[in-house]
């Protein structure tokens, strides 16, 4: 008659661990969001230029690689704030641990900076180059050399940027996906999901700035595609959990019938994905004037996804399972 009863009385009260794991607060979602965003910007800017065989024409478009450098620095700043022993941050760069996604990430981030810098310098217009040359003063010859290199190797640099961006995007998901102790995270879908989300938020960021008409049009198409892929991957992730064992279902319940359900559906699925998808499609079909609200929703949705997945995942400890 009565279902099986399980009552566990725990003597452990370690802060940050009990009653549920809350080791990672707002800093890690901020970092994952900004990392994904920058990954999306790298992939999209490179893809756009490779597709059109022409550099960005607007000043805002040319500035975006440098903006991305700022954003990834902000993200790393958030990650730095999360460290319990900040002085030891240099330890990340004294070793490389092949099994640790975080180690991979630390090194990928080191590649992101020069790649973005080369991508940005090579994409500048003559006017902007002149302005920059006047600013750097004594470093002028160095700048000239770097710029000559960036121009000569433009296409390889763009392909590298795309690859590094994709790696960065996948890594933000894999960081969580490889942690098998948290059932919600432990999925191979996590990497592609966060990459897709990164591309859509990256597109949203680019849609917020002034680009030429054709670039805007292409980006709306790619954004729509990324949102579609993201929705599909989310469905795969949740279906995998729902059809899994009882522990997996408990994990799925955090998003489908628990603490985080209303936020997940309203901010991520409906507000962050479905509504922007419809707005994008309507914009493309009917040639409506674009609105900033669509990218704003995508950005809010992308950040909400990171925050919810990080929070809900920590809630799905092995220890909590029946």
């Amino acid at each position, binding site marked *: *008659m*009565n*279902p*099986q*009863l*399980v*009552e*566990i*009385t*725990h*003597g*452990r*009260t*370690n*802060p*940050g*661990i*009990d009653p549920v*794991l809350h*080791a*990672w607060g707002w800093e890690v979602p901020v970092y994952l969001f900004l990392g994904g965003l920058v990954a999306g910007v790298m992939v999209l800017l490179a893809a756009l230029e490779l597709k059109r065989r022409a550099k960005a024409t607007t000043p805002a478009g040319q500035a975006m690689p440098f903006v991305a450098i700022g954003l990834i620095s902000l993200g790393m700043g958030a990650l730095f704030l*999360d*460290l*319990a*022993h*900040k002085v*030891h*941050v240099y*330890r*990340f760069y*004294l*070793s490389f*641990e092949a*099994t*640790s*996604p*975080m*180690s991979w*990430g*630390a090194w990928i981030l080191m590649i992101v900076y020069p790649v973005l810098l080369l991508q940005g310098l090579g994409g500048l217009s003559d006017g902007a180059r002149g302005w920059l040359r006047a600013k750097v003063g004594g470093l002028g010859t160095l700048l000239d050399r770097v710029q000559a290199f960036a121009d000569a190797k433009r296409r390889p640099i763009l392909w590298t940027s795309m690859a590094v961006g994709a790696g960065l995007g996948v890594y933000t998901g894999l*960081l969580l996906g*490889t*942690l*098998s*102790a*948290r059932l919600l995270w432990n999925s191979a879908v996590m990497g592609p999901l966060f990459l897709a989300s990164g591309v859509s938020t990256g597109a949203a960021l680019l849609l917020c700035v002034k680009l030429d008409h054709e670039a805007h049009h292409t980006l709306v198409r790619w954004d729509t595609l990324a949102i579609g892929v993201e929705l599909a991957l989310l469905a795969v992730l949740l279906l995998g959990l729902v059809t899994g064992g009882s*522990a997996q279902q408990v994990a799925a319940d955090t998003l489908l019938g628990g603490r985080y359900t209303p936020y997940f559906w309203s901010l991520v699925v409906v507000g962050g994905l479905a509504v922007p998808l419809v707005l994008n499609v309507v914009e493309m079909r009917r040639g409506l004037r674009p609105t900033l609200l669509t990218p704003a929703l995508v950005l809010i949705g992308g950040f909400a996804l990171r925050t919810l997945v990080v929070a809900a995942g*920590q809630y799905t*400890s*092995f*220890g909590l399972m029946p």
Partner: protein
Amino acid sequence: MSKTSRRYAMVMDTKKCVGCNACVLACKAENNVPEGFCRDWIVEEVRGTFPKLQAEIRSERCNHCGDPPCVDACPTGASHIAEGGVVLVTHDKCTGCKACIASCPYDARFVHPEGYVDKCTFCLHRVQKGQLPACVTVCPTRSLHFGDLNDPDSDVSRLLATRKWKVQHPEAGTDPHVFFLV
């Protein structure tokens, strides 16, 4: 027998444990565990269908896994497998990124107020001197046993050969080395 061929393990007899918390206090005293934190702890579990209920009391700690996810997750090599399979954290290498905490299915790790991640060490400093871990020495019901699994005559090997036992969360695939006699 050379050092490297040892495999330390702990065997915990749930039939004997009364949940007195002596192991917890001994550990705190021995290892200077800061106020409000613990490296080992007592779990009381009641299962069944009312009115048929079964209770079990366990003294739990880091499982010193054979395949420790925390060591895999550590980006700096601070978490490592030391002598006898004991999983340790090198304080000077630890950045406090908490990846190992998130990776542990047993939630055995915590952030020490001094900024590094801390956990049970099987009292390796005592073991190297030929002593037993602090928790084992104080257990009034002798429900804790420590020894080398590679030695067939050790306490732990004989208990595991003769008694029924289980490990926590075998589905996590971590090859835990704290065994519970049932």
